[in-house]
């Protein structure tokens, strides 16, 4: 009894520990995180491929005679390219927002495409159908438990994802869509297809992390499929390795129209 009172006193003393975001300001990213990358390909030095050769996941390419192109979907945010770039063409913006609706919106480098083109909300029909609720079934298909852990953290008291009507459910039959992590291993392909089929139509798919978007560190290995899109259509891409919880939350809130 005495213990119970102590616990209740603690709760009263601490008050509500859920962050004010999105009504208040977003909590800052860790200073050394750096946020989303920006590529001013116009600044690329003639013939320079310093960034291309240091990227561990081959996220940067520089075809002969053309400026560099950076695929944020493949990026693991190791900062090697930022350090290697002699002209400051690749920079960190400090911004946590980087989720996109189309795969091509994560490709940086073309004229007017220095930055990621951020996700907009679902179409009106789907929004009307979903109302104020979004229920997702999570499928890890080769994920390392990084993206899984930082998706899970959205359920803790600081983030409290359920206040937005977003919940993770146990059965795909109860879900409006899938949230996929991992590159989709050969051994998980059938299970992922099964889970996708079990979600009632219309359904949405969210790919979280460099693996689920494009294979991440495992891109090109024969045991994986280089991302969820090779198996199911994807409606939202959230880059990172793993994405910061704030980045994942921003992506989900964009999809349901709570953040624009």
């Amino acid at each position: 009894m005495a213990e119970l009172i102590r616990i209740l006193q603690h709760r009263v003393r601490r008050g509500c520990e859920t962050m004010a975001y999105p009504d208040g300001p977003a909590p800052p990213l860790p200073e050394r995180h750096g946020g989303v990358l920006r590529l001013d390909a116009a600044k690329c030095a003639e013939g320079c491929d310093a960034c291309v050769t240091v990227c561990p996941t081959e996220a940067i390419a520089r075809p002969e005679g053309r400026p560099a192109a950076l695929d944020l979907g493949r990026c693991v945010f190791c900062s090697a390219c930022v350090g290697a770039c002699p002209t400051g063409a690749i920079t960190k913006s400090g911004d946590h927002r980087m989720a996109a609706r189309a795969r091509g919106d994560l490709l940086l480098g073309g004229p007017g495409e220095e930055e990621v083109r951020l996700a907009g909300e679902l179409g009106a029909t789907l929004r009307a159908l979903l109302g104020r609720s979004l229920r997702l079934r999570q499928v890890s298909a080769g994920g390392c438990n990084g993206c899984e852990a930082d998706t899970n953290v959205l359920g803790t008291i600081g983030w409290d994802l359920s206040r937005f009507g977003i919940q993770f459910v146990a059965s795909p039959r109860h879900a409006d869509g899938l949230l996929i992590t991992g590159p989709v291993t050969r051994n998980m392909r059938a299970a992922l297809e099964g889970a996708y089929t079990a979600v009632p139509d219309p359904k949405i798919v969210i790919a979280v992390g460099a693996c689920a978007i494009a294979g991440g560190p495992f891109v090109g290995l024969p045991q994986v499929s280089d991302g969820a899109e090779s198996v199911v259509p994807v409606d939202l891409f959230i880059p990172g390795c793993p994405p910061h919880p704030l980045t994942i939350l921003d992506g989900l809130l964009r999809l349901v129209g709570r953040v624009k």
Partner: protein
Amino acid sequence: MSTPRSDSPRRFATIVNGASLRWSDVPEWPVAAFVDATAAELDRGARLCAWFGVSEGAATRLVAVLAADAENTLSIGRSEPTSRAYPALTPRHAQAHLFEREVWEQHGLVPEGHPWLKPVRLDHGRGPAVGDFFRVEGHEVHEVAVGPVHAGIIEPGHFRFQCAGEEVLHLEIALGYQHRGVEESMAGGPGRAALVRVETIAGDSTIAHATAYASALESLSGPEPGAGEGAEAPMRAQWLRAVALELERLANHAGDLGALAGDIAFLPSSAAFGKIRGDFLNLTAMICGNRFGRGLVRPGGCRPDLELDTSLAAALLGRLRVAMAESAEAAAWLWSDSSVRERLEGTGAISREMAEEIGMVGPAVRACGIVRDVRFDHPAGWHRFAQTPVSVWPGGDVLARARVRWLEIQRSGAFLEEQLASPPEDELIAPLGPLAPYSIAVSLVEGWRGEVCHAALTDGAGLIRRYKIVDPSFHNWTGLALAMRGQAISDFPLCNKSFNLSYCGVDL
């Protein structure tokens, strides 16, 4: 016990953790004698850290890495190239059972007399869990199949229970769904993607695996390559790795205590530890920007621009103290509540003898009262100078596994208090020289789940010829299966959380 033939070396080659030696200096036996010699070492009290094959044309050599914990040494031996079959080690030492299945799967070498030979990871086009499961027959016996996709946000695996009513008679765990080919992809390297792959072997153990990888490469480079005199990272980098390793332990142990509390619907500690886990992850992010320590460790040291200066150390310490005080409060609620104790006590117990027999590691084995901790038994890197007392608790049940975690949270906190106050002056990275040809390095790190073992073998050009990774989960999944015997099936989530093993760490 048996004695190798007189024309073979009598004993395994002895090294310490983080050292390397020439491949030609690893003693070899004909395969049957090698199995005998390994069994003899295990009879003497050694432990199997790794057992793997190295291809030699169409044939295969078996390699054993053993740990003599009391003597603080590792030993390595190998067989002559062999093909088709060899007498299995498993009937004599059960701790070899999964290793021998793996060798069979990877090299086609049949361990004759293995009691349960089936794949570890490969799907053969049908899904990894397809195949024979042990079945209990009987009028009232029923089978429960769970997975690969589970109810929570968790990795995939398949669990097959044989039950009589609520009681679990037997549990068989089939993994392999997460197989990404990490180990195979290391051959011919180290390549550009090697480090990021190592960091994601088990993404919650990034520092442990990256440190094991970096140490193995460092010991293969340097002034006297391959002769046990390899290079090592600058002291400041070794110190930073040790700091990050304890932060990794803190985050995961705090998360586990919260998850255990959540499973028994004790919400105060569940809510508190859920938040505290994030606070610890954010400390790692203060050092390197990433909550899981990605990019912090690299071969040769640590990322050079991640300097942990006095003001950052002070900021870390301030936030660490807050998180430690909150942990103490949330843990006290757990231990002082009789209904919590009643729920955890006696659930999912593993005997000390059983833990020894199957070669368990990490907090799970220390919860059986066994002193086994790489930081103490095989100190390498910064742990040669700064050691953490080993946290043990008797009983082998869920309560003991929870208690060991809490003891370790306190020791990690004390370690960080001490270390953050006195960093060594040094560089953060020294360029890594070329790797020595025809050499093998072994590196052990005590990750938060237990012993991480990496072994790197180079070819004549100094490239990786064979890279072997053993995640602690590889040793411990059998422990979870045995802990469920005689338990109610409804206790599975609780037992599972108390081990909290890695799927991708095993599947590689």
